[in-house]
């Protein structure tokens, strides 16, 4: 009977422990529901049966309900064997913790000792198929103030759970050696059960998790774990990690004086790789520290930081209302961030399907961000000797230094400068920009931007960020730029003269740059007026340019010498209407070249005649070769004309006359000696025509035989 009394005392002691559970949560609802130790503790001595050699003790508990866990149907049975050894069998139908249920749990203890103050099982097995595939060797020791359960599922894996308590304090410690993460996946938050959320697939952890409490509840918690070979993945593999090693330390302490919790967490990323579309994160020695206080209404972050090796350190702090998540205050400071690594690891993956997909960025940056009452209030970005280079060679800016402040409630002025750069191969010189920033608008009253040997004067530049992206506009003027420098920069046929002009309002609507008005340029001693100029997707894969161009009074001497075409004196007007370039190459236009009205010298060399006739047919050359005309170096002409309608890679040519005929006049002679040059090819493949022109212009001085 002494054993029975001991058991009853053990049960009483257990009831007291349940009462302590009340203090885990101060919520009244839980207090009301706290412990329902349902009815039946049917403790009955069934059998000291007829077979006195095999006595049996059995008791059952139907339900235990608490805010922390619930159990259904606990049955314990103690058998005494013939040799005097005792066996313990415990069966639990179900244990539920945080909506997760473990069913059919059994403890078999073949070496079981039961003393007045201690119950000990040294050779037991835990069968819990929801946790472990096969029975797990276990041992436990229980006294009136201590319970230790030791599980050794396999190999070096060991889980030791111990609870100590007395009238004032309790301590719970879970010590793990090489514990498999998969055992705990079911206890992770609900979101882990979402179909597409990554799930742990591999990993072990070792260390200690400790909870301490008193009669009022939890007073502190400490976690010190090292995680190894951690792996996770979602079903598609778009969010996955492999071979991750972490060290995790955390302390939570209740401060009774201030009625709040003081907490701190440290995570050291030792190795591993994570692909979280579109980011790929790897490397070693990344470190996260978060710390602060929690008073039940607000979560305060204090002096926390994230240190990413290769990139830099980000410090942050803030106050978040609990539980609605409203950011009351937040501040982030990043100093000396290495932009090269930041760009490669963080920015570029997000820019993969944009025009900035192939940016190379280097240099350093400081960044500050402040949020107040859920609204972004201040941002400050500083760039220190930053280089931005497009790998497709569309643009580049070198040695950028900038101080860019932004405030939600005020206008600020940014100071931006760069040493040099280029846009679409056109070199830009040193410039310093005082840029006004107001909300999401940028304003720049005036800017002188060195372009080659001239200056591009921008006036009234404004840009705004809208739901559809950036919009900007400006007007201005281009002071003389030498054509030699421009053509050299554009890597096209060298030309002489100057380029200058007035730039009316230019607008970018998120897709196209269009000129509102006409663009006027002075070149080859004549004028060029461009109407309806529009550049569609200027930085896209296939920029399109459309325009109508009217060139007037161009000096043919300058023009033909630029192209080594053979000397021609005179002046021409050229109309190019419905011009469309795709990827900077023409795909459509209606072009017409004709002699300018007025009085001027009109002479053309044999070389030029040969070259012109090569474009339109060989008839003229043959005529020259067969006649006395071959003795003259130059001829007079009355009129020059050429037409080309480009459609689907074919140039439909014509001459001075507008009507299409089988032949057409390219040069109408006048004076002495004079010559007419006729064209016979009406349809010429555009690429073939270009090839001919290139061949001609590469042969500096054609020989007339």
């Amino acid at each position, binding site marked *: 009977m002494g054993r029975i009394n001991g058991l009853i005392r053990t049960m009483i002691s257990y009831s007291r422990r349940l009462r302590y559970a009340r203090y885990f949560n101060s919520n009244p609802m839980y207090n009301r529901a706290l412990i329902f130790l349902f009815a039946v503790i049917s403790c009955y001595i069934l059998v000291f049966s007829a077979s006195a050699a095999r006595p049996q003790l059995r008791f059952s508990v139907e339900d235990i309900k608490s805010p922390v866990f619930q159990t259904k149907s606990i049955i314990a049975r103690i058998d005494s064997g013939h040799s005097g050894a005792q066996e313990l069998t415990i069966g639990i139908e179900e244990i539920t913790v945080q909506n997760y249920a473990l069913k059919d749990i059994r403890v078999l203890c073949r070496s079981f000792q039961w003393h007045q103050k201690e119950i000990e099982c040294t050779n037991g097995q835990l069968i819990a198929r929801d946790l472990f595939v096969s029975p797990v060797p276990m041992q436990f020791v229980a006294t009136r103030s201590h319970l230790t359960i030791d599980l050794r599922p396999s190999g070096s894996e060991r889980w030791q759970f111990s609870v100590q308590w007395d009238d004032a304090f309790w301590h719970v410690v879970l010590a793990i050696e090489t514990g498999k993460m998969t055992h705990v996946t079911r206890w992770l938050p609900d979101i882990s059960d979402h179909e597409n959320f990554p799930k742990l697939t591999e990993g072990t952890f070792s260390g200690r998790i400790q909870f301490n409490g008193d009669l009022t509840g939890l007073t502190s918690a400490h976690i010190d774990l090292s995680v190894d070979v951690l792996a996770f993945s979602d079903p598609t*593999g778009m969010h996955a990690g492999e071979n991750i090693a972490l060290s995790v330390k955390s302390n939570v302490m209740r401060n009774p004086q201030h009625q709040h919790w003081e907490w701190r967490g440290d995570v050291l990323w030792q190795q591993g790789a994570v692909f979280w579309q*579109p980011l790929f994160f790897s490397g070693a020695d990344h470190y996260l520290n978060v710390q602060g206080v929690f008073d039940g209404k607000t979560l305060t972050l204090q002096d926390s930081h994230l240190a990413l090796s290769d990139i830099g350190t980000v410090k942050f702090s803030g106050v978040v209302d609990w539980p609605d998540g409203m950011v009351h205050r937040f501040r982030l400071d990043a100093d000396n961030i290495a932009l090269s690594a930041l760009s490669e690891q963080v920015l570029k993956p997000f820019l993969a*399907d944009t025009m900035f997909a192939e940016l190379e960025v280097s240099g350093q940056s400081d960044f500050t961000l402040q949020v107040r009452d859920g609204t972004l209030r201040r941002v400050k970005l500083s760039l220190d000797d930053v280089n931005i280079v497009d790998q497709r060679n569309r643009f580049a800016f070198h040695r950028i230094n900038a101080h860019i402040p932004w405030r939600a409630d005020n206008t600020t002025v940014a100071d931006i400068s760069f040493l040099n750069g280029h846009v679409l191969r056109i070199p830009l010189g040193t410039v310093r920009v005082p840029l006004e920033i107001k909300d999401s608008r940028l304003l720049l009253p005036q800017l002188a931007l060195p372009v080659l040997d001239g200056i591009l004067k921008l006036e009234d530049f404004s840009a705004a960020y809208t739901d559809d992206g950036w919009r900007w506009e400006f007007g201005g003027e281009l002071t003389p730029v030498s054509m030699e420098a421009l053509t050299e920069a554009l890597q096209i046929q060298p030309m002489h003269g100057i380029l200058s002009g007035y730039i009316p309002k230019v607008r970018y609507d998120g897709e196209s740059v269009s000129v509102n008005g006409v663009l006027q340029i002075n070149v080859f001693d004549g004028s060029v007026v461009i109407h309806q100029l529009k550049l569609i997707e200027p930085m896209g894969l*296939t920029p399109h340019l459309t325009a109508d161009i009217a060139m007037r009074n161009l000096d043919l001497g300058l023009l033909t010498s630029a192209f080594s075409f053979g000397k021609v004196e005179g002046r021409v007007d050229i109309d190019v209407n419905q011009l469309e370039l795709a990827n900077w*190459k023409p795909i459509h236009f209606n072009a017409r070249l004709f002699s300018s009205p007025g009085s001027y010298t009109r002479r053309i060399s044999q070389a030029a005649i040969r070259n012109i006739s090569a474009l339109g047919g060989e008839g003229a050359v043959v005529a020259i070769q067969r006649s006395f005309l071959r003795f003259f170096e130059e001829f007079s002409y009355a009129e020059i004309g050429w037409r080309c309608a480009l459609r689907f890679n074919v140039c439909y040519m014509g001459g001075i006359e507008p009507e299409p005929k089988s032949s057409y006049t390219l040069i109408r002679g006048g004076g002495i000696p004079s010559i007419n040059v006729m064209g016979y090819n009406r349809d010429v493949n555009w690429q073939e025509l270009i090839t001919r022109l290139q061949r001609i212009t590469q042969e500096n001085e054609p020989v007339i035989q």
Partner: protein
Amino acid sequence: MVSRFYSVLLFMALMLAPLTGQAQEANLEINTPAIANIKQSMQNRHTQLVQYYTSGAVGLTQDGMVTMRDANAVPLAQRQAVNTLVAAENQDRAALYREIARANNHPEWESKIRATFGQRWTNLARPGWWYQAGGAWKQK
């Protein structure tokens, strides 16, 4: 070899059955410098992509694009690179359809052209490649 196969594939995609409905008159063989550039870019990339079509990591979508279908078929360290490859291919494909529509002087045909190409890429896919049909993935 792969490059040659791709040339044939691209050529056939451009040559096969005419567009239906509104875009019936569209000339898919049309060639402009921009289209030639895009095709060259796609052809160069195909040598890198073909292994991922074969492994099932990348599949062909109904709208004439490609997508990462099963990243698990790609080693973790290479997934970002394949992701970037897919994004670049889709940029080229979108530009190709847009350019063909523009070259036909009917930019509004882009979506029809895209759908037609989607069908053609699927028809021309090699055995074992994955494609989308009716919202579900199927293997040729």
